[in-house]
């Protein structure tokens, strides 16, 4: 198909673009809003804030989530904080600086106009959250506290202990439930979207499965909003929740929504290393720990991990200062331990590849608080990081007040997602995509504390305006699930579920997921090369073929069946993985989280190729087993000069 990938961002000065755009787009008459029904899928920060805000405006909203309550979406696990350019610290922050840092941090692969808007509305998010009762950390004078985060030289991160995501999500969830009470929003939990219904080229509804009764249901609306998060679970082991999946996005992609930059994945530097092959997921330790923790490995390989003995050569406390390699401080004297996530992760991989790793399979580095405890005292450290230390100790059995933490990078966040224009609408008219599920604001690498900012910006302050433009232009449609497109899509969904249930194979769903994850992390992880990517493509196909012949999905589809839920999600990951690999192969440059070994500087840093690759790669699904087709949105940088990112 022909796609014109135009962002639709207004031309002219970027500082006033969003104001002018809000004036230029159509507005739905307040009395007519209740005639429009919006289906919101996912109730994390983006989905809950969007559904609540649309309800407040008077739209008829139905919000879906697979969890038993809207409060449990995985945004809840975000620990560190949320950025805003309030400049409360008087350290020179501004909307411009936040904009600049975000474009630079994203390694110049994001859309300037979107990022500027994000930086502008960030301040409103802090105001909104405080008004909702989000208990952000405060100073003794009663004003809000800030902390520093990777990739920025100002202190602009607002936080609520190590539970910022939880508190922001509860704020959005409570606003959502207030709308449920007001009768504008209906929340439909324990329900998973399994397909998108497209009528005359426009998104008009969804097919869902009730996860308790197994019933397939059709829902019709005037627009569909996907707020279904990222795809990091394609790696099997990631910091995502067990249920996080790509199904809604992937199904939408098969119905005509282009998938942008699927190669971009953020591998977060500070996670607890794996312990063994039974590992079910990886736990993130907030990046804020790098404010006071120092990262190092032993200089001598003899002191590192010994796989045979299943322990390190020498305990970290016994290694003298001069035999410790503080590799971030040495390699990046300006930013030190606060380099952006992609840089920190790759640096950890380099030392571990060099045999200096200190945890299971040689995959781990130390994060040491001894200096901070000496300088600040144990009490201050406890106040800042107490709950994180407690969490760490519970999982590993080690006490970080006494011995350094062990950390290693893990897949965490995905910058790619469905392509959207400036109005956050995908290439399927009427299908909007917000939060992590879209591709728009973080380029090739997301800075810390920016995910919460983007999810809430989209939900509270962008989508509620831009969706009105689409709705006002179209006029209210009949909410009619008897259209033949609904029946046809539901039949396809039903057949797929039946197929999964009748294979009666010998391998569990998780076992296939693990095989997929291993290929992806080894060959499409922190470092990639053409040869590895090509072999990954073949291996993923093999796994997928075996999956459809040998997966075991016990039980039936007329009740709660967790094996069936997982099987559907893994089946979609097995298809999605292929387009991700194609994207990584196509992008013959290194940028942000996408590191092609063939393209690096003499010092081992990412080498971008702005001449050939300053574009968004948006992939069109072209049928089962076919190669996806590439479409490009060329990125123009009018305000930020493209430079080699340096944190030295």
């Amino acid at each position, binding site marked *: 198909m022909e796609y014109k990938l135009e962002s639709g961002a207004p031309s002219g000065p970027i500082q006033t673009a969003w104001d002018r755009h809000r004036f230029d787009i159509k507005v739905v008459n307040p009395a007519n809003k209740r005639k429009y029904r919006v289906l919101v899928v996912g109730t994390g920060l983006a989905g809950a804030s969007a559904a609540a*805000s649309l309800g*407040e405006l008077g739209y008829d909203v139905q919000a879906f989530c697979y*969890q*038993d309550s809207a*409060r*449990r979406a*995985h945004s*809840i*696990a975000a620990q560190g904080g949320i950025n805003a350019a*309030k400049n409360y610290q008087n350290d020179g922050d501004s909307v411009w600086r936040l904009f600049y840092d975000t474009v630079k941090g994203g390694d110049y692969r994001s859309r300037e106009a979107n990022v500027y808007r994000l930086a502008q509305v960030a301040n409103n998010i*802090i*105001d909104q959250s*405080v*008004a*909702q*009762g989000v*208990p952000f*950390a*405060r*100073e*003794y*004078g*009663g*004003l809000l506290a800030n902390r520093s985060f990777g990739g920025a030289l100002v202190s602009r991160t607002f936080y*609520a202990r190590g*539970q910022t995501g*939880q*508190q922001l999500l509860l704020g959005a969830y*409570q*606003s959502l*439930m*207030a709308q*449920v*009470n007001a009768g504008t929003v209906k929340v439909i*939990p324990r329900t998973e979207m399994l397909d998108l219904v497209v009528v005359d080229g426009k998104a008009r509804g969804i097919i869902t499965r009730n996860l308790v009764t197994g019933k397939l249901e059709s829902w019709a609306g005037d627009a569909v909003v996907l707020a279904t998060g990222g795809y990091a679970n394609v790696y099997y082991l990631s910091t995502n*929740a067990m249920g996080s999946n790509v199904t809604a996005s992937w199904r939408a992609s098969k119905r005509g929504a282009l998938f942008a930059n699927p190669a971009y994945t953020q591998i977060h530097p500070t996670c607890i290393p794996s*312990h*063994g092959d*039974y*590992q*079910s*997921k990886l*736990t*993130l330790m907030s990046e804020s720990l790098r404010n006071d923790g120092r990262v190092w490995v032993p200089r001598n390989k003899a002191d590192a991990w010994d796989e045979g003995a299943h322990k390190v050569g020498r305990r970290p406390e016994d290694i003298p200062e001069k035999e410790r390699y503080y590799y971030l401080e040495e390699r990046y004297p300006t930013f030190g331990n606060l380099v952006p996530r992609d840089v920190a992760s790759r640096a950890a991989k380099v030392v571990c590849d060099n045999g200096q790793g200190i945890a299971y399979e040689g995959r781990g580095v130390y994060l040491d608080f001894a200096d901070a405890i000496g300088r600040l005292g144990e009490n201050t450290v406890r106040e800042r990081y107490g709950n994180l230390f407690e969490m760490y100790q*519970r*999982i590993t*059995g080690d006490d970080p007040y006494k011995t350094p933490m062990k950390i290693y990078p893990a897949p965490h966040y995905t910058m790619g997602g469905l392509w959207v224009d400036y109005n956050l609408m995908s290439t399927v008219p009427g299908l909007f995509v917000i939060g992590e599920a879209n591709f728009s604001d973080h380029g090739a690498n997301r800075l810390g504390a920016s995910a919460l900012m983007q999810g809430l910006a989209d939900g*509270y*302050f962008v989508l*509620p305006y831009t969706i009105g433009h689409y709705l006002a232009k179209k006029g209210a449609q009949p909410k009619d699930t008897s259209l033949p497109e609904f029946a046809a899509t539901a039949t396809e969904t039903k057949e797929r579920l039946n197929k999964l249930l009748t294979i*009666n194979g*010998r391998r*569990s769903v998780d*076992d296939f997921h693990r095989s997929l994850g291993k290929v992806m992390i080894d060959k499409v992880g922190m470092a990639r090369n053409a040869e590895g990517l090509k072999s990954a493509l073949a291996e993923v196909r093999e796994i997928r073929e075996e999956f459809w012949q040998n997966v*075991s999905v*016990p039980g039936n589809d007329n*009740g*709660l069946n*967790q*094996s069936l839920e997982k099987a559907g999600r893994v089946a979609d990951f097995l298809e999605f993985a292929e387009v991700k690999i194609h994207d990584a192969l196509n992008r013959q440059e290194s940028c942000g989280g996408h590191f092609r070994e063939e393209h690096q500087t003499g010092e081992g840093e990412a080498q971008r190729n702005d001449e050939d690759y300053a574009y968004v790669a948006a992939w069109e699904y072209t049928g089962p087993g076919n190669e996806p087709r590439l479409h490009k949105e060329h990125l123009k940088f009018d305000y930020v000069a493209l430079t080699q990112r340096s944190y030295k």
Partner: protein
Amino acid sequence: MNLTLKVWRQNGPTDKGQFKTYEARDISSDASFLEMLDIVNEGLESKGEEPIGFESDCREGICGVCGMVVNGAAHHSTPRATLCQVHMREFKDGDTVTLEPFRSKAFPVLKDLIVDRSAFDRVITAGGYISVRAGSAPDAHVTPIPKVLSDRSMDAAACIGCGACVAACPNAAAMLFTGAKVTHLNLLPQGQPERYKRVQAMVEQLEHEGFGHCSNHQECVRACPKGVPLDVISLMNRDFIGAQFKLRS
């Protein structure tokens, strides 16, 4: 290590349910409790048998999805931990472990160890929020809040809505859960306009859902994985009594 599991299996809300025995073999002491169950379930799945139904999502102690009664204690007896944070180093080779769902009239069993906690959502819907439309908030620094107050509010706001307090309470009361939300919002200046209406609506919803009353057993605080303090209940009671006067005038 090897363990014997006695697991509650129940096909649906109307099924009678019964304990069944399973063996967990070669479990590493570094594995988490839920990873041990994953291993048992994968064994069942590869034999074509239906796995044990249990829920979990974040597996880092914050989403509040997981939870069951392990050896008689909600989330297991490890202090201040959700079940997903319990590791097998807490168990010994040869142990017999009993697994039951959270039991309460207000939390019907959906399958095996999975219960329906939607009553909690309805309690929040009744009034567990501050009404503020997006776009209408004043600057965040308009109202300074003393750190002590903000910290107390945060202690209460840490509740993850897992339901362990209800499962542990001999009366199956949800006072800790509800008190936590009332305290979080009623302590803050932003929560004052709806303070009394909020507490009254939420307590009425509690009654309606069939939760029991508080008779000061304090089992809830012992079971709470997030250390929500007991005084949230007294604060809620104080405001509830206050509401009887304030709302009348």
